[in-house]
């Protein structure tokens, strides 16, 4: 809401500098969004919280300011008015508490007697309200000053009497701004005998609005219940000055007073014929709320005692009236402009607000001591630190992306799309972290980066249960095989697999196994699915080359994605002392068929060995020169040991021959 600085100053009867005024208002919860220069004056843009409907006007702001400063606030009551003739239409209130009070006047024979005041136009312009018609301008000016929205109709376009009622089925209204609205049965309308003439409390109907040609006018000023206005305009995708005020709550004792303000301005500027004020009220007209509170209640919430005199003086300044005082409870009556005060906590906030939050005490004791418990969050962070230490850079991508990206990768199935995305490129929740990391890769490739190790931890989403899965994904890309000057490590499948194995060691993930992948995103023969016991927890490998074009990449990247929210972690295990007897080692090199996997060889060795085998470490795999085309050479070191004795030469020879004959028999291996 934009308000002219000079109007505010005049109303609080002060010469305060704008910065000081804004600081004071900020400290009582009226936030200033900005200050702009305006025609030699200043405009203050307020960012009002939705609870403070009472501050949606010059007088409302001034009232709260004066309460804070303990300064007299004079509401200049309007001059009494007696119209010469009766308001000719009858008014019917048929919507119970939705509209419990409605006032109107009719005006005719309007003749200007002096220049229309510039200050009214200036106020309107400053607040961003267009000047339309002198009467509409006056009504809007009074709204800015008092907070009461009103509406001007062209009387000659209204058929018969006026009724405030809910919309009938299929009823529509074209509002100012040419928008045709299909009304629902919970929409309140002002209607004549034929059709709705206004969307009550929100906007007038276009057909019944005033124009330059209008001769006879009706001005409405009513009380509409906030609950009936709330969210209505928003439902149709707009809001108006009236709807913003009514949905927060407009002083229910204001509608007639505001109308009198309008009349006195009209009489000042125009010769006119104004009817008596016609007011209809029904039994639903609100009563002032009563809140009971004790000094103990206040101390309990604020953590400091408040004196009775302080309490009474503060609330009096806020026009909150003491009705009754019993032994410990005070009953206060909430003024008609404060819709936000209904429970004692609300009054406690008012007291705190007037004392100043910075003047409330600070209590250096901890109200809760809680038992320590490790959280899953610690695990997640430990994984992040682990990945960082493995040389990966953490990225964070949006959880949503273009559905097309998922379609192109055939992972759109069971995906969840947003009903109201910001745009198409952010329309669908990701089902895998791969497209996000690929996008980060592409972004950086376009910036001359050709060596990337990225990771992300984030959720993926699916219609299936569970809907959310927390995943770790990592991407390796090294387009130039950038070798370090002093090392020859390849950034490939085995690099990533090694990281998962280290991860398993670090976090005691037991029973991991590796199987040929079924993940279509990955290379079918150079990737693996990872299982913990029988549960698939992720995959690792290189991108299936068929997606290179889709992703606009020249070379594939290596990738891993693991579900980390359901991993099984072993407890700490007993530490066993090492054997005091020395171990023995021997190196072997075998030639085997190319298709034989390492797993087969290891299993064969372990079953061939009788006992004492402690570790098996592979140190070379070779195919090429000096090896037959369909063969490969594989070299490993075996360590034997016992915790009962030093192994003899015979023990080792026996083991060695068992292993050699086992490999020869089972896998046709040849010792080299």
């Amino acid at each position, binding site marked *: 809401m934009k308000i002219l600085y000079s109007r505010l100053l005049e109303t609080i009867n002060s010469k305060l500098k704008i910065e000081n005024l804004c600081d004071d208002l900020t400290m009582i919860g009226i936030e200033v969004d900005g200050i702009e220069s305006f025609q030699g004056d200043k405009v203050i843009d307020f960012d009002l919280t939705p609870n403070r409907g009472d501050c949606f006007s010059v007088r409302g702001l001034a009232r709260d300011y004066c309460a804070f400063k303990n300064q007299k606030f004079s509401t200049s009551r309007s001059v009494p008015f007696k119209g010469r003739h009766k308001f000719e239409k009858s008014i019917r209130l048929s919507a119970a508490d939705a509209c419990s009070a409605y006032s109107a006047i009719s005006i005719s024979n309007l003749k200007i007697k002096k220049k229309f005041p510039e200050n009214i136009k200036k106020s309107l312009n400053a607040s961003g309200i267009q000047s339309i018609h002198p009467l509409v301008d006056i009504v809007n000016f009074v709204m800015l000053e008092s907070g009461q929205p009103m509406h001007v109709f062209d009387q000659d376009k209204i058929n018969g009497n006026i009724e405030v009622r809910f919309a009938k089925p299929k009823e529509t209204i074209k509002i100012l701004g040419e928008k045709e609205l299909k009304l629902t049965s919970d929409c309140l309308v002002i209607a004549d005998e034929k059709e709705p003439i206004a969307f009550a409390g929100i906007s007038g109907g276009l057909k019944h609005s005033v124009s330059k040609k209008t001769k006879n006018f009706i001005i409405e000023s009513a009380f509409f219940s906030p609950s009936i206005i709330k969210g209505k305009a928003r439902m149709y995708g707009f809001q108006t000055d009236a709807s913003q005020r009514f949905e927060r709550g407009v002083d229910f004792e204001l509608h007639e007073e505001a109308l009198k303000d309008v009349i006195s301005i009209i009489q000042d500027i125009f010769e006119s014929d104004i009817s008596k004020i016609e007011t209809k009220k029904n039994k639903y007209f609100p009563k002032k709320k009563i809140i009971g509170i004790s000094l103990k209640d206040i101390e309990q919430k604020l953590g400091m005692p408040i004196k009775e005199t302080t309490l009474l003086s503060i609330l009096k300044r806020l026009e909150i009236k003491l009705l009754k005082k019993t032994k410990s409870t005070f009953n206060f009556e909430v003024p008609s402009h404060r819709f936000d005060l209904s429970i004692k906590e609300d009054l406690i906030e008012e007291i705190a607000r007037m004392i100043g939050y910075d003047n*409330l005490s600070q209590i250096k004791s901890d109200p809760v001591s809680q038992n320590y418990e490790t959280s899953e969050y610690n695990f997640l962070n430990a994984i992040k630190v682990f990945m960082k230490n493995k040389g990966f850079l953490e990225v964070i991508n949006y959880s949503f992306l273009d559905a097309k990206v998922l379609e192109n990768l055939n992972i759109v199935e069971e995906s*969840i799309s947003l009903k109201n995305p910001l745009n198409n490129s952010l329309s669908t929740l990701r089902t895998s972290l791969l497209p996000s990391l690929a996008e980060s890769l592409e972004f950086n490739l376009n910036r001359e980066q050709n060596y990337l190790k990225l990771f992300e931890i984030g959720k993926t989403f699916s219609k299936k249960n569970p809907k959310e899965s927390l995943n770790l994904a990592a991407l390796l890309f090294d387009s130039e095989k950038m070798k370090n000057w002093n090392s020859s490590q390849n950034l490939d499948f085995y690099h990533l697999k090694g990281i998962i194995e280290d991860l398993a060691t670090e976090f005691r993930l037991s029973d991991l196994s590796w199987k040929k992948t079924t993940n279509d995103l990955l290379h079918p023969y150079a990737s693996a699915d990872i299982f913990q016991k029988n549960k698939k927890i992720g995959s690792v490998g290189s991108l299936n080359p068929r997606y290179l074009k889709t992703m606009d990449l020249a070379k594939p990247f290596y990738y891993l994605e693991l579900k980390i929210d359901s991993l099984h972690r072993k407890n700490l295990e007993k530490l066993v002392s090492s054997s005091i007897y020395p171990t023995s080692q021997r190196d072997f090199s075998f030639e085997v068929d190319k298709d034989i996997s390492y797993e087969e060889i290891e299993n064969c060795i372990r079953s061939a060995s009788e006992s004492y085998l402690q570790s098996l470490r592979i140190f070379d795999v070779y195919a090429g020169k000096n090896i037959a085309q369909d063969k490969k050479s594989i070299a490993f070191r075996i360590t034997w040991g016992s915790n009962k004795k030093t192994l003899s030469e015979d023990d080792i020879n026996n083991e060695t021959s068992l292993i050699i004959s086992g490999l020869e028999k089972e896998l046709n291996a040849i010792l080299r």
Partner: protein
Amino acid sequence: MDLDALKADLEKDFLEINSQEVLNILKVKYLGKKGHISELSKNIKNLSKKDRPEFGKTIGELRKLCEEKIFAAQEQIEVNSINESLEKERIDITLPGSYKSQGKLHPLTVTTLKITDFFSAQGYLIEDGPEIESAYYNFDALNIPLDHPARDMHDTFYLDNGDLLRTHTSPVQIRAIEKRGAPLKIICPGKVYRSDADKTHTPMFHQIEGLVISENVNFGHLKNEIMTFIDFLFGPDTKVRFRPSYFPFTEPSAEVDIMDKKTKQWLEIMGCGLVHPNVIDMAGLDPNQFSGFAFGMGIERMAKLLYEIEDMRSLFTNDIKFLSQ
């Protein structure tokens, strides 16, 4: 050869020895079976009984001197030889390390960790909840009914089934109270979503939210917790102010500002307040028995202050040049 001449020779010979070979020759020359000292000591029989002890003593001293010289020379030769080989093993220490294996955590993670570390140490449990939420947990249970104007402040992303992407981490408060009851002390970091995008807003961002529920929790406790936290995060000389604000789920509500040390402007850093009795009630506790406070802040804003980041969006473009700084 007499004693003095031998001693003079000895001193001269041991002046400079640069190889093991020379030393070996000298060893034989002086201490060998037919070496000078042995030869000279044979002269003892030509001496009178009276002179013999004196001569014997002198010879002994000479032998000792010779042995010491040999020992020192031996040491020197070894030192020289190590020094020589060290020289040959000289490397270029200005070459970079073999394998630079240190990655980096995202600035938002670093910021979150800073904050969660603080609150963990104060005894807060770290809790999380789903990112796809029901309107009940995101709004209704937090005292934000359907027609509440506060829903306007949350530009919500909806799903087809009526669920939504949480617009704040506050639903975790309700889930935690339902799960754990009171007393309770939790901190919940996480992603939140709002349909908003410009220089200061991204459609996804991160919040961290704290909740303390017990009997007799008051505003003084809240103030103390926030002040201690700000001292920790921004330094003990940070100017802080609390001002009234509005959140449907707290009453009284406050906004906390800190004074920017450079620009001398107030910066809004977090919202907080005493938990609204309706919220306590809806989560299944008796608001007459339990009270509490809650606070929440945007992690991007904290990161922006700690790292002096200009454009919030740069946190999500994942430019490795930016991230690996």
